[in-house]
C-alpha cells in the first residue's frame, strides 16, 4: 500500500470516528424522553435532509455531469413513483438510475 493513501484513509477515518465517538460519549447522560434528546432528533433529521438536498442541487463527484434540470426531473419522477407505489423504497430507487441514464442520453 502507498503510504500517502494509507495516511489519507487513516486521517479520514479518524475525522469520521471523532463525531461518532463524541456522540456516543455525550449521549450517556441524555434520557430519551428529555427535551435535549428531542432537539437533537430534530437536528439530526434536518441535517440529513440538508445533506440530501445539497447532494441533489449542488452535487459533488459524477453527478456534476448531469444538468440541474435532468437531476430535478429524475428526483420528481422518482418521488411520484414512490407515492404511487405506496411508499415502497426499492421501485423509485431503481427507477431513478434508469431514468437518469435515459434522460442524460436522449434529452
Amino acid at each position: 500500500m502507498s503510504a500517502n493513501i494509507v495516511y489519507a484513509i487513516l486521517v479520514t477515518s479518524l475525522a469520521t470516528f471523532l463525531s461518532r465517538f463524541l456522540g456516543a460519549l455525550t449521549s450517556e447522560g441524555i434520557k430519551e424522553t428529555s427535551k435535549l434528546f428531542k432537539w437533537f432528533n430534530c437536528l439530526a433529521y434536518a441535517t440529513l435532509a440538508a445533506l440530501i438536498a445539497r447532494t441533489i442541487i449542488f452535487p459533488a463527484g459524477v453527478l456534476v455531469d448531469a444538468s440541474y434540470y435532468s437531476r430535478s426531473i429524475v428526483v420528481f419522477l422518482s418521488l411520484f413513483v414512490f407515492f404511487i407505489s405506496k411508499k415502497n423504497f426499492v421501485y423509485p430507487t431503481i427507477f431513478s438510475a434508469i431514468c437518469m441514464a435515459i434522460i442524460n442520453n436522449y434529452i
Partner: protein
Amino acid sequence: MIKKNFFFKGYRSIFTHDSPAIALTCCFIAIGALFKNLGFNIQESIFSTVLTYALPGSLVMAESMLIGASLLNIFLAVWIVNARLYPMAVSLFPLMMHKSQPKWKYYFSCHFIAISAWLIMKSNYKNIPKKHRIDYWIGIGSATVSVSVIGTFLGFSFSEHLNKDMMLGLAILNPVYFLCMMIGASKTTPVTLSVLFGTILGPIIYLLSPEWSILIAGIIGGTLAYLVGEHSVS
C-alpha cells in the same frame, strides 16, 4: 457478549423489502470505481470503506487527494462534512443505552452510524426490548458494512465496464433512496418539519457558506422544527 438472535435479527434487516441494500451497493460500486481511478489498490479501497464507512467523507477525501490537499486539510474537510454524525449519534444512543450492557459495545458500534443504518434503527427500535437494542444495532451495522464492502469490491473490479451513464445512474440512486426514506420517516410534526426545513435551508445556506451549509441548515432547521413541535404540543 452479543446476543446472537438479536444480532442476526438486525443483520437480516438488510434483506427486507424496504432494505437499503440496493442503494448502498450501487453507491459503493461508484466509490470503488472512483478509488480505482484515484490509484488505490483493492486492499486500500476496502480498507477505506471499512474504516470510514461514510459516503460524503469518502468523496471529500477523494476530491482532496485529487487536488493534492495536505493531511490536515483532509482531516478538517472530512470532519466538517461528517459532523452531522454527532447529532445522529446523540439522537440514537439514548434509545439503546441499558445499564446491563458493557460500554465497549456502544463505543465500538458508534462506528456504524450512517444514514442507512440510522434510519433502519429509528424505524424498528420500538419492536426490540431495550436491553437488546445494542445487539440488534450491531447486527444492522455489520450488515450495512458488509454490503458496502461488496459494493466497493464490485466497483473496483468492474470499473472499466462502467461508462458515464451507468456512473450517473449509480450516483443518483443514493440521494433518491434516502429522500424517500426521510419522507417515509416523517410521521410526527417535528420530524416532518425538520426534513422540510433542512431540505429548504441546505441549498440556500450552501450559497453563503458551502463548507458549513449542512451543519448550519441542520441547526437552524432542526431548532425551528423543535420549537414549532413543542409549541403545537403545549
